[in-house]
């Protein structure tokens, strides 16, 4: 029999009471990804974003700070920003004209003297602000202003974020605006499908494999899976050759020495020589770094690397919204940036050769597990339960529990659901008796 820690009740995934609890204990408490610094390049630049179901404005304030403000007037609640992006010196509410500066302070109140009591104090009516911190250009925010810092929240996992995004000398930039699509599944199913699961590569994605789009290799690769406290996890599927040379396939070769130089040894080893490297920051920010062999442009070099972020917003127990950012090194050649961008759109974008199959698959999991009988069953996360954690890999010490196998198994999922249970105050093996959703 599988261990209770290797299974999760289907009703737990989809129950309405779990969804409500997730909003309260995970999304209102945790650090949530908001956007990339390059999206708001100048003072006054802003973009409209969501923190789970709460709409916020990410703005680089005129005083130079990154601010995440609830997109709702302090007076009677009108939405302040109704466009996707722009540049502004202030936010003015259309209803009664209350005006806030880009730090969220209430500045102007029409009729202040005539209509409001003398005791009315603008300082008591600033916009609600989330706490904001960044790592490697990624902007995170939390409503939990008194909780742990972002660094504490990420813990050991920062090592891997620095490894992936600290390689470049001049940083990364988001190309274009985020792609967005809705998915008929629960956010957890979408997150673990994209950010954690690798065993489906040869089956669900058999087609792009056979079309030569991704994964061609002479040597059998090894998957290094790292499960960190806090529910974060990452895996790198790599060719381990004796030579020890650090290659970054898909990136122009002139970058390679610089990439290695910007990292410490273990980090460099981890991100080098990979077919693909992917993972997830708890709860819902997944990322991937890979190279494609061919995506339909014969003028492209044979291997083009690509990096993306993928945020899955919870909307309802059976509905979520995916946001996809494509990142490229700031100083890359414009033509190379375009190749990299297009390769991702054609594979992991909503019109790509991979994502539609994943969408079909994850939606199907929702469809068949919505009802009363099916929900009274488990999902199995037993693959890799037999692997032993390694002290070091090829002489490198990597943070977290580290496993090596011919494929990335289900270890990251087990870590993710353990953290999920912990935050919701659930024991392994419990099951929601609440109403189906």
């Amino acid at each position, binding site marked *: 029999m599988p261990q209770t820690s290797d299974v999760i009740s289907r009703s737990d995934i989809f129950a309405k009471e779990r969804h409500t609890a997730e909003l309260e204990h995970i999304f209102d408490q945790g650090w949530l990804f908001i956007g990339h610094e390059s999206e708001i390049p100048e003072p006054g630049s802003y973009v409209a974003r969501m923190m789970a179901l709460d709409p916020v404005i990410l703005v680089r304030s005129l005083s130079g700070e990154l601010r995440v403000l609830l997109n709702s007037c302090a007076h009677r609640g009108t939405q302040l920003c109704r466009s996707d*992006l722009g540049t502004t010196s202030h936010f003015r509410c259309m209803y009664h004209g209350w005006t806030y500066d880009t730090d969220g302070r209430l500045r102007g109140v029409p009729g202040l003297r005539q209509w409001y009591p003398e005791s009315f104090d603008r300082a008591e009516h600033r916009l609600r602000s989330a706490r904001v911190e960044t790592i490697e250009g990624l902007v995170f925010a939390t409503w939990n202003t008194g909780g742990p810092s972002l660094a504490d929240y990420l813990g050991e996992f920062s090592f891997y974020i620095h490894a992936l995004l600290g390689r470049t000398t001049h940083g990364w930039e988001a190309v274009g605006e985020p792609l967005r699509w809705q998915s008929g599944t629960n956010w957890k199913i979408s997150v673990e499908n994209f950010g954690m699961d690798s065993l489906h590569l040869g089956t669900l994605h058999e087609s792009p494999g056979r079309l030569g789009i991704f994964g061609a290799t002479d040597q059998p690769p090894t998957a290094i899976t790292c499960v960190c406290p806090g529910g974060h996890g990452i895996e790198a599927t790599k060719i381990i050759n004796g030579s020890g040379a650090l290659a970054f396939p898909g990136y122009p070769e002139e970058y390679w020495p610089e990439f290695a130089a910007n990292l410490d040894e273990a980090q460099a080893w981890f991100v080098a020589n990979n077919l693909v490297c992917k993972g997830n920051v708890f709860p819902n920010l997944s990322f991937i770094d890979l190279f494609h062999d061919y995506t339909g442009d014969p003028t492209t070099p044979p291997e083009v690397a690509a990096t993306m972020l993928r945020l899955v917003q919870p909307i309802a127990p059976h509905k979520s*919204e995916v946001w996809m950012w494509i990142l490229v090194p700031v100083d890359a050649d414009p033509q190379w940036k375009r190749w990299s961008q297009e390769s991702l759109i054609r594979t992991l*974008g909503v019109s790509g050769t991979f994502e539609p199959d994943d969408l079909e698959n994850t939606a199907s999991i929702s469809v068949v597990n919505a009802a009363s009988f099916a929900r009274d069953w488990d999902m199995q996360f037993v693959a890799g339960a037999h692997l032993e954690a390694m002290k070091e890999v090829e002489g490198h010490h990597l943070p977290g529990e580290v496993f090596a196998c011919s494929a990335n198994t289900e270890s990251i999922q087990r870590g993710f659901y353990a953290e999920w249970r912990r935050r919701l105050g659930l024991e392994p093996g419990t099951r929601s008796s609440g109403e189906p959703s």
Partner: protein
Amino acid sequence: MNVAAGIKDRVVTAYNLEADRLDAHDLAAWLAWVHDEFRYEVPIPVTRDDPRAPQHSSTGFLAVETKDSVALWVSRLSPALVDAAYAENPPVRTRHFVTNVQVAKEQDHLNVTSNVLLTWGKWNEEMRFLSAQRQDVLLDDGRELTLLRRRALLDTNVIRLSHFRVII
């Protein structure tokens, strides 16, 4: 410059045939009227203040294809691989309602705009709908029309079809 009804009729006929092929999931046949330099783009819809400002991205895309990249889809739907084309098999029922075709003749090509309502029926689920304007560039050798460029401007900021592996 507007054009003689004859050209417009030919464009409409070509569009109707195209829609038939797309809705029959016959991408291979569809590819026949696509130019070798074909480029298909669906820019990301972006809502900006000011109704006159561009409401679609100039740098981000939901889809970018060429004749070669679509050829990969054709292979995907070929007998050898169609069993693993999970998003397209079983097929989604699609229908392209093409209206408001406007043709302007330029020096060496036609600029054509049209409205497309795409209906999307996946198995037992409720129908979904997508509306868009197409901005096409067609070449006309007097006998045959070929599709050189297509830009599809979606009327929704978020894709709500079950996926977007479809030519608008």
